[in-house]
């Protein structure tokens, strides 16, 4: 047998550790070079990495290609924004039969936002998961677009223009105004979610989920009512996307329908393909690569997609396992390598 250490220390592990360390020291680098913009970039990478990780759970491991995943980000972001709006406007969210006030306390806002996203995932998943393949892609897309137009119709909360979070959020008595504090909260959430997903994927439930991707008919035949397993995974993914949406609203202090429009859902799929579908760290690398490349290209030309498009095509054609796939090793891929 190869020693445990050799099995562990692979190029992939080194690369992912380097990625996490880079994210951890980014605020220090940012203040050293006196460029606060770097923190914003890191924040955006982490939020999108959380969102892409949640999509990875259902798409990468479960084989459910959703093109409406941004809906769950946007729903949570809007919950945060709407609760915030009612605080700053001094108007209760609901005055009958019971009075519900708005809130800007993250201890209240975040669980509510995540719960609403998870509940939406339960409803949307319950209907969508009766279909597979192309129909599933289309129905998830349709649901996301419905919600997009729903929020556009909400004139009270800014309609198409979106809404600003005027009331500063707090975490209990601590203000979340502090960008560095918020940054490390996001990093902590990203790490917890990566560990959580890793455990799910390797659990009994994860075996069933990955089996569904490989051969759903076989899983039914050995006795799994696959719909239930897929629905649970879909709801978990919705909840995690809700966490990403909460962070998004808090960090950018602004929410608009664009946050749940289908281009955002498409971006998440692109990130997975770039980083490595069905690998634990693929979404993190995918989101970092996407955000940085977009920034670099955008500084050259406003038509950055003209260059980004060919890069993506190159990845699809020649780098099939994504960035993570370039560094083969026994650690990341949970399915047997072959």
């Amino acid at each position, binding site marked *: 047998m190869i020693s445990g250490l050799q099995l562990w220390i692979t190029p992939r592990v080194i690369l992912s550790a380097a990625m996490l360390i880079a994210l951890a020291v980014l605020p220090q680098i940012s203040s050293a070079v006196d460029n606060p913009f770097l923190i914003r970039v890191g924040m955006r990478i982490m939020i999108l990495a959380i969102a892409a990780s949640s999509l990875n759970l259902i798409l990468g491991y479960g084989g459910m290609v959703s093109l409406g995943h941004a809906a769950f980000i946007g729903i949570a972001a809007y919950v945060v924004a709407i609760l915030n709006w009612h605080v700053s406007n001094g108007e209760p969210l609901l005055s009958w039969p019971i009075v519900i006030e708005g809130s800007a306390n993250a201890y209240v806002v975040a669980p509510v936002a995540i719960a609403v996203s998870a509940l939406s995932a339960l409803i949307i998943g319950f209907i969508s998961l009766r279909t597979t393949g192309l129909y599933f892609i289309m129905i998830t897309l349709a649901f996301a677009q419905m919600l997009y137009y729903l929020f556009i119709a909400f004139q009270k909360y800014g309609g198409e223009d979106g809404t600003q979070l005027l009331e500063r959020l707090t975490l209990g008595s601590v203000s979340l105004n502090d960008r560095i504090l918020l940054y490390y909260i996001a990093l902590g959430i990203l790490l917890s979610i990566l560990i959580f997903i890793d*455990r*799910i994927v*390797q*659990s*009994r*439930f*994860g*075996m*069933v989920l*990955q*089996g569904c991707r*490989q*051969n759903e*008919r*076989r*899983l*039914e*035949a*050995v*006795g*799994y*009512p*696959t719909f239930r*397993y897929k629905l*649970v995974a879909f709801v978990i993914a919705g909840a995690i996307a809700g966490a990403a949406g909460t962070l998004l609203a808090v960090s950018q202090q602004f929410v608009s329908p664009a946050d749940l429009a289908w281009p955002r859902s498409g971006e998440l799929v692109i990130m997975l393909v770039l980083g490595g579908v069905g690998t634990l760290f693929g979404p993190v690398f995918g989101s970092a690569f996407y955000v940085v490349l977009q920034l670099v290209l955008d500084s050259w030309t406003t038509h950055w997609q003209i260059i980004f498009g060919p890069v993506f095509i190159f990845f699809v054609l020649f780098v099939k396992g994504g960035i993570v796939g370039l560094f083969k090793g026994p650690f990341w891929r949970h*399915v*047997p390598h*072959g």
Partner: protein
Amino acid sequence: MAEPILETRNLVQRFGALVAADNLSLSLEAGELHAIIGPNGAGKTTLVMQLAGELVPTAGRIFLAGEDVTNLSVSARSQKGIARSFQITSLCPEFSALENVALAVQAHRGHSFRLWGRARRDSSLFGPALELLEMVDLGSRAGIPAGLLAHGEQRQLEVAVALGCQPQVLLFDEPMAGMGREDSRRMMRLLKSLKGRYAILLIEHDMDAVFALADRITVLVSGRNIATGAPQEIANNAEVRAAYLGERGVMRA
């Protein structure tokens, strides 16, 4: 006689004008190996799909140990003890041979909504799974992804997966399909070793295997049961000879 473990009563399956099961009644006794033979298009695979729950019969009922299971889903029937192999190999190609069996074991032991704890370290799943793999001669191939196994090995693995389902009834849909002589012989031995321990419904084209293994044989033609009986009776049945076997002298039972 004791109650049959699996029984169909007057099954009918229509696909438009085509009748794939025509008032089909048959029974599988406990511990019996019951072979279904018939020319192509006789409705053998239709029967397996009806029994497994993938097809809802147009009319008729299916009973498992006296319980009506006609309206149960595929997974619910598996939970009740109907296990099957597929005519065309159907496994999880990325999972190892061992994981494929463990997944079947897991479906029938404890529950699978456990989100924590590493399944691959769960000896209550992988212990029995390895035993089953050894039983089908795949013990040394446990770590190989199912998709990379040879065709014959995949067929053996199908059997191990079915056994992992704690079956009351095994439905084997042409387990020797596409096999060479060597693999067929191994599969024969395997089926022989299972005979008597499980109630087995075997669909097979290989007449040597059928006549060597079966306790009873049912002959299907155009979805109808034209004869059921011991191999010797079937071999001597005039209607069977006329309708299906012709006068090619293949009956060596």
